[in-house]
């Protein structure tokens, strides 16, 4: 057995050491101790996946401290880690090759103990999990924490349903023409389709396909497509279109029901060239019904551009209520790398000299004093704002090198 130390014990260690009698030697210390995470999942924790280091790092947003990490496979983007509080487990989908980057491919759903972060097992799944530059909407866990969904691409699409309770693949469902997995209950998930509709996939109790239902066509994928970067509240998902139209879809019925869309931009904002864009460019806080949206000034084809502003919407009121500015992360990124003090003179000069590259991705915590995290895909630093006031609280530095995701566990 490996001895394990509670975080609390380690933090108290200093006091013990200080209380040592003067003149006595430091005592020999135990070898082999490994930290474990606190029992309760913190409300301000955030995963920061990185494609170059090939891991997802868990940070505490209140302190900027790294808590631990899980490794990922040989993909363009790490997958989103899925956290089951009930089972105290974390699930992550990895692709590995028998010779590193070539040879036989195998895909696994890896099971971690969420208190020790030990890999305690894995489930082999069909070796065709989809890989994208953003890693968004490729995996999901249904309510009840029994079924994990994995979107496949080979190059046709399907969805693997993995039963993490039974530790086996439950089914693989053909979903040609639709993509993205959007969990909407214990027995269903949505997908966006190329014909401008949305589909509900209904599962049986044992995770196989029960039946598929389709909405009417509610968007035009050529003229003004919705992005797959949706946000969820229970059985409702919101999707934003390239032109900033907000589409609300209700998945509570048998057939998914789109509600009338409304524009997140006024006519004058639109004339000024404001557009949505980035990677994970929308976030939602259920308690306040606030939607956060990364915006920039640009034209057609700028839907992946980062933005320097985050606009805040009251969804029930259908109106913009605030505008947050995201301070430059350049010095926080380069400081530890080049060895200067990001908060000192050199940092200030560099933040001024070098451009503010803006924000690709945001995430908001679910509690009553929520934090809003933001990152640029190429800067290894994460900014932390008060999600209610927009106040810049801190930067988390040395947060990797390249990646688009920010995941609230």
């Amino acid at each position, binding site marked *: 057995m490996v001895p394990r130390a509670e975080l609390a014990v380690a933090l108290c260690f200093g006091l013990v050491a200080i209380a040592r009698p003067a003149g006595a030697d430091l005592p020999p210390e135990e070898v082999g101790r490994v930290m474990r995470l606190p029992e309760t999942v913190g409300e301000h924790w955030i995963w920061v996946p990185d*494609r*170059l280091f090939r891991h997802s790092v868990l940070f505490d947003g209140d302190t900027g401290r790294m808590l631990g990490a899980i490794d990922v496979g*040989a*993909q*363009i*983007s790490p997958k989103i880690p899925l956290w089951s509080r009930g089972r105290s487990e974390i699930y992550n989908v990895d*692709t590995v*090759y028998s010779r590193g*980057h*070539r040879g036989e*491919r195998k895909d696994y759903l890896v099971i971690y103990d969420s208190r020790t972060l030990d890999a305690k097992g894995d489930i082999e799944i069909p070796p*065709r999990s*989809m*890989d*994208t*530059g*953003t890693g968004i*909407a490729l995996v999901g866990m249904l309510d009840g924490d029994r079924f994990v969904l994995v979107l496949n*691409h*080979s*190059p046709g699409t399907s969805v693997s349903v993995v039963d993490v309770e039974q530790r086996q693949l439950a089914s693989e469902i053909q979903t040609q023409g*639709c*993509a*993205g997995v959007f969990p909407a209950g214990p027995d269903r998930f949505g*997908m*966006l*389709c*190329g014909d401008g509709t949305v589909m509900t996939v209904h599962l049986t109790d044992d995770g196989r396909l029960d039946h598929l239902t389709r909405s009417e066509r509610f968007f035009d*994928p*050529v*003229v003004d*497509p*919705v*992005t*797959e970067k949706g946000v969820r509240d229970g059985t409702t998902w919101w999707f934003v279109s390239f032109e900033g139209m907000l589409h609300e879809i209700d998945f509570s019925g048998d057939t998914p029901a789109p509600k009338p869309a409304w524009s997140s931009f006024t006519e004058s904002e639109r004339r000024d060239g404001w557009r949505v864009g980035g*990677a994970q460019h929308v976030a939602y806080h259920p308690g306040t019904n606030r939607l956060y949206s990364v915006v920039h000034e*640009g*034209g*057609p*084809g*700028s*839907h*992946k*551009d*980062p933005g320097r502003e985050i606009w805040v919407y009251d969804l029930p009121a259908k109106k913009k209520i605030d505008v947050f500015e995201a301070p430059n992360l350049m010095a926080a990124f380069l400081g530890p790398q080049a060895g200067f003090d990001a908060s000192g003179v050199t940092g200030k*000069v560099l933040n*001024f*000299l*070098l*451009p*503010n*590259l*803006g924000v*690709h991705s945001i995430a908001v915590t679910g509690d009553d004093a929520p934090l809003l995290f933001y990152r*640029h*895909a*190429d800067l290894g630093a994460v900014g932390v704002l008060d999600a209610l006031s927009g106040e810049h609280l801190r930067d988390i530095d040395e947060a990797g*090198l*390249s990646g*688009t995701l920010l995941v609230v566990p």
Partner: protein
Amino acid sequence: MSRLDRWFEGLARQSARKVSRRSWLSRFGGVLVGGATLPLLPVARAAEKHAVGEDGVQGPQGDPTRCEYWRHCAIDGFLCSCCGGSHTTCPPGTEMSPVTWIGTCRNPTDGKDYIISYNDCCGRTFCGRCMCNRNEGERPLYHWYRNNDLNWCSGAKAQTYSCSTAIVVKVAKEAQPEK
């Protein structure tokens, strides 16, 4: 201090215009739309500054190692021209994926729109050079063949992504409907 301030401000603006299109690593990196001029790299490309490129176009639009090259209007990835290949050829040791996404790009020489096939080169890890992301007519995941975010190496022997090419398929019948 005001002269210093103005100088810095000028530098910052200059950088802001230049940054991001080749923003290094992100296969999903930021892109400034419009005619932004990219930095010349100090090495080989400096000499090619006024060269006439493969398609007879002078400047960046004729240089396949530049993000502004006309065929790159919907690319997302590392340019194979900077990776040991060319804009139509994979680097040594990789395999060209037969399945791909497409873009519709205007050739400045003849003013015609061409269908461009962005075949990925696969089986080796990130090239890591000349990252380029442009999204003219690019569409989300569910609109497959117009999506540049997907790892299109799914059609190759090993699905590791290395870099992307930009191959002429044919003249487009119409300018692309997707804006």
